[in-house]
């Protein structure tokens, strides 16, 4: 197995995630796209970990933890938005500009 096949897979996921965050207007879907990106990173880390020491996997674990925290915070914010606006379309957030 080439390491590159994992890396490229990760890159593809990363870019799909980027596409996702750019087109999705629903807050939850944006968060999902972010998960794609973060998972791409994790694939990278673990793949590199096979070549080097264990710290790649450690890193991946930390990323998973942080990702969980971020999703939690993100969803909390989405809920907060929903409470006042009854909508979670992020392109409706345009009160602040200029």
């Amino acid at each position, binding site marked *: 197995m080439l390491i590159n096949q994992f890396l490229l897979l990760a890159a593809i996921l990363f870019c799909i995630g980027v596409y996702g965050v750019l087109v999705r207007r629903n807050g939850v879907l944006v968060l999902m796209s972010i998960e794609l990106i973060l998972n791409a990173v994790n694939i*990278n880390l673990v793949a590199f970990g096979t070549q080097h020491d264990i710290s790649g996997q450690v890193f991946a674990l930390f990323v998973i933890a942080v990702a969980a925290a971020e999703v939690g915070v993100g969803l909390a914010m989405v809920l907060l938005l929903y409470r006042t606006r009854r909508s979670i379309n992020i392109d409706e957030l345009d009160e*602040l500009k200029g």
Partner: protein
Amino acid sequence: MGGLIAAAGWAPPAMDWHALAPEVILAAGICVLILVDVVLLERGKAFASAISGLVLLAAVVPLLTLAVSDDTSRSLFGGAYVVDRSALLLKALFIISGYVTVLLSTNYVAEGEYWESEYYTLLLSSVLGMSVISSSRDLIGIFIAFELLSIPSYMIAAWRKRDTRSQEAGFKYFLMGVFATSVLLYGMSLLYGASGSTLLSKIGETVESGRATPAVGLAILFVLIGFGFKISAVPFHSWAPDTYEGAPTPVTAFLSVASKSAGFVAILNFVFYCFIQNSSATDVVVPVVFVLSALSMTVGNLIALKQDNVVRMLAYSGIGQAGFILAPLVVAHDRLSDALPSIVVYLVIYSAMNLGAFGVVIAAARKTRSAEISSMNGMLQWAPGLTVLMSVFMASLIGIPPIGGWYAKFSVWRSLLQGATGWSYALAVLIAINTAIAAAYYLRVTKAMWFEEANDGDVTPVDVPPSLRLALAITVVATLLFGIVPSLLTDAAAVPLALGH
């Protein structure tokens, strides 16, 4: 238990509790805050700000003892966590910024019916993250600390829960932050992949041994972008004005100062402990930093010209200032001994003056309930003290001697000119031009305060609570002192010179 440990080959890491004392105190403080909240419930709210203030002050104590101890450079966990004097200086910066933020928040949060003790908990957490990041010399440590300082700040930006603007501010900050985190992480993963280590120094060595591959270039770029977001460097700045404007003003102050400094610290860690050692990484760092710096100062200052809201203007000004602070990195490779201190000095002075400016905005808003520049009209009549203070801070931001900002700008300039490369000269010229542009909008504020008549002739004085007074006193003293006797600061900031580079 011991056997198990032995069998697993695990040895307890040598702990230097003295070195970790500031963080331990902060963490303990967080626990105390939570406990107080849980035990005392509503009655605890009253103590929250006092406790967090005390915790932060307490955390300064070990900083001082560490500073005077013989062992000025303590390395823990195999070099993953280093407490040296530059780290101490930065920790002090963060903790004191945190303290000033607490002072700024006290009345604001108490009078605004916010979730108080949780607010301070998050604030302290963020400060803890900053404190950790200034010592971390390891990808994972930096990443986690970075997240710790970011995530609570996303939330306190949205702390004015029912205000749609605050929500918007928080959410924008959060999402852009997460994007940045993802890019940062991707870059870190490549860095790890290319070097096989998460320790910055090892990465530096390994990258040096081989030639810079495209992946390494990409990694460096992505790391810089990740932190560039935090320091609101153009083109990764777009969150900053919106968030600053929408977030509760003390939080904005905190973001624009502490959080931004943390971003810089992360960049400094990378650049100085990792990239700087080899010239091929420098080849990547210099153009990227140049572009970020040039764009930031120009775009930030130009847009600031058009702003009518002080906070938003300060946001753009912060973007511009970020450009200034970044600039010495283009000469970091050759002129380490000038570039690093000049950035640190700038950060410290910038923090003092910017916090002070926000302090005045908060104080004035107590009367005007607004942050529009026009709301400050005729402030000389109704708040002469605040007017003078604000003028001092604005003058400092412009860079007029002998108020702190001049020395900051001067030291940056000095290192740029000393670097004597095309990049550095170009930036020096840009800084000169931008200083003049920047002066125009800072002057608008002073103009409103000094030259205009008070709106509706209302000259009732503004009531400034003691905590706010203390915050303003600290910042103005620091701003003036660092300008008049910069050696106070330079002596501390110059220490990295001794680190053997």
